[in-house]
């Protein structure tokens, strides 16, 4: 692992870690805003808003981080996120225009935020001042408007403000693209999409199959320390980083298991799903390691990163139901097996590339 290019400064670690960190933190912020305004039962709307923004924004964010490209990908991402969210909420769910508009704006603004964070990762700049400013403005607006529209409007304002400020450095450097780069750019965008799918596949397969969405989503919290460390790490050799992350995550998961009763006591997780929650927690412990390996792959062979992320997406979506079909009690083990298998695959890809 000590090749000539081993200590590599790259935005990939922050980028890949951000694919999990961003949505989780956005969910937390949105839930906090909803709780602040006393709104109940909008968890799924928030999840859909974040998911749409991630699906649309992740490809643009990868392009922004790795090529400094903002412009039409950003416009396309915000447009897709906003219009699809508005169509979904107003057209399908029949929400009133004010609420649907606020939710759509929140989705588009989150897409802008992902791109902005990608730019910050690529330029090595800190997005924290912008985030703090956005959070403050968002809370004030949410408090002024109130209700569901207020919560989503506040989220939208905060994300838009932070995202715009974070994306500004890339806008000072207009990028000229050559036609021969189209294929490379498409693969980069594909990597972003695969990452978004890998993040979203678990919760959404649970949602579509009437599984315990809350269990899968809450378990992601156990991955936060490792992901934060990964986002902050620069120039550490990938396998050493993965090893360190494994140790850290073991601690985090152990802590999660110790306080495992708390979510059930708070009523977030049904008491009978506590076993499933523990399995999901164990699985989520592998996510930072997987992210570190995918980040290393993204820096060396983008196609490998696409394959690994897609594998995680497919496994998270399919493995649990398949195991459930084989034997009814085995279903929850999918949440553990999918990250482990995907991490193994990513490790194999990376080791193969090194050899």
């Amino acid at each position, binding site marked *: 692992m000590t090749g000539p290019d081993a200590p590599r400064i790259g935005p990939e670690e922050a980028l890949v870690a951000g694919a999990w960190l961003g949505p989780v933190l956005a969910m937390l912020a949105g839930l906090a805003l909803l709780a602040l305004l006393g709104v109940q039962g909008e968890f799924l709307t928030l999840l859909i808003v974040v998911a749409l923004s991630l699906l649309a924004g992740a490809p643009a964010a990868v392009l922004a981080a790795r*090529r*400094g490209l*903002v*412009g*039409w990908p*950003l*416009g396309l991402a*915000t*447009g897709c*996120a*906003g*219009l699809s969210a508005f169509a979904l909420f107003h057209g399908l769910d029949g929400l009133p*225009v*004010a609420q649907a*508009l606020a939710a759509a*704006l929140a989705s*588009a*603004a989150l897409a*802008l935020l992902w791109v902005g964070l990608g730019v910050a990762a690529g*330029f*090595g*700049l*800190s997005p924290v001042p912008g985030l703090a*400013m956005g959070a403050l*403005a968002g809370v004030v607006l949410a408090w002024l408007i109130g209700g569901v529209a207020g919560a989503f409007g506040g989220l*939208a*304002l905060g994300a*838009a*403000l932070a*995202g*715009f*400020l974070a*994306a*500004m*450095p890339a*806008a*000072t*450097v*207009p*990028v*000229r693209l*050559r036609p021969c780069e189209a294929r490379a750019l498409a693969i980069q965008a594909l990597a972003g999409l695969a990452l978004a799918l890998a993040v979203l596949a678990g919760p959404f397969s649970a949602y579509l199959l009437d599984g315990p969405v809350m269990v899968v989503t809450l378990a992601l919290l156990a991955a936060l320390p490792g992901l934060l460390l990964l986002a902050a790490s620069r120039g550490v050799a990938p396998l050493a980083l993965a090893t360190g992350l494994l140790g850290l995550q073991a601690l985090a998961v152990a802590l999660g298991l110790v306080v495992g009763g708390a979510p059930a006591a708070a009523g977030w997780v049904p008491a009978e799903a506590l076993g499933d929650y523990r399995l999901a927690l164990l699985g989520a412990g592998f996510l930072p390691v997987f992210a570190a390996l995918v980040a290393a792959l993204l820096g060396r062979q983008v196609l490998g990163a696409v394959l690994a992320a897609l594998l995680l997406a497919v496994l998270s979506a399919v493995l649990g139901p398949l195991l459930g079909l084989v034997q009814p009690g085995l279903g929850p083990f999918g949440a553990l097996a999918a990250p482990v298998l995907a991490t193994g695959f990513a490790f194999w890809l990376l080791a193969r590339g090194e050899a």
Partner: protein
Amino acid sequence: MASPVPPSPVPVAGPRRQPHALAPEGAALILAGLAAGQALVVVALALGWWLAALVLHLGCCLALLLRPTPRPGLPGSAPPAGLLRAAPRLGEAGWSGAVLRLLGATLPVLGPLAMLGALAALALGVPRRLRRVAPAQPEDPLDARLEAIAQARELPEGLLLESLGDVLRWGHARQKACALELAAEPGRSGGAALLRLALSDADPAVRARAELLRPQVERRLLDAAEALRAGARGQSGAAGRTAQRALARALDRAAFSGLLEPPRAAACRAEAAELWQALAEAATNGGDAEAEAALGRNLLALGDLPSARRALEAAVTRGAAGACAIGWLAECLFRARDFAALEALVLRWRPLLEAEARRAAVTGPHAAAWRLWLAEAPR
């Protein structure tokens, strides 16, 4: 270069405007208009007039997309193609332009939120961290060279000619204009040669600019000769001869600068020829090689080949005139079609000419011709 040139269609007079299509005030104006429009959109949204808000918002988007953009291909409007990441342009204009660019991608969907972000970005200005991450754009070496020349008042002629010639060759329009201005400055005696080069430049804008600067240099050369003439008028004896010599040199400089109108140049040459003739005749023991060589050169330029040949042969025989006089004599013999004498000249001065062809391999006016003759002449 000598014929009067019609007024050039290229706008060359006066200091050039920087080719930014969008001045900082323009960007600020557009941003202010967009902010006002988006404030109206917010009001319409608050009142629940969805259609009015939509129409207003679409109007804002249209105004943003149809704004005047910097034209590509002009210096300073875009980073060089092929560079993935040029250094950011972080001036005030660059920052507001970047805000507008990002607004163009985000305003259509985010509307007032993007506008607020843009206003916040404008208010906060360029992040200090970004200034540190992106060092200032490296200076254009030609600009640096022009600045250095402008500051150095005393510069050897050859160096000035070479430096400004580089700028004329590689620089862009503004730099070329600046180089010509420098060359036409009163204190730069070497600038006349550059102007003569510029008069036959491939770039029509450079030709027009040089043609515009030519009359003032011409007037200055003639004025210098006139001043010397006034000084030489009342003197006699040794002082008079010194003054005459200075006047003749000034006349030569003006006549052979290539910047004078042909009749004036011919008049200068005739006057200089008379002066040199007088000086050569007044010379006592050993003769005056400089006067004879200069006389021959002037007569050669005036077309009096036999007299020129006599004067130059006298100068060359004295041996003090150097390779230049031999070159003029060779030219004279060539134009008189006396090739036998030319070959004899080459044979006679072979060591000197070989050294000259080697020394001034690139820059000497006759080096290439010498090399050819030396190669052809029998040893």
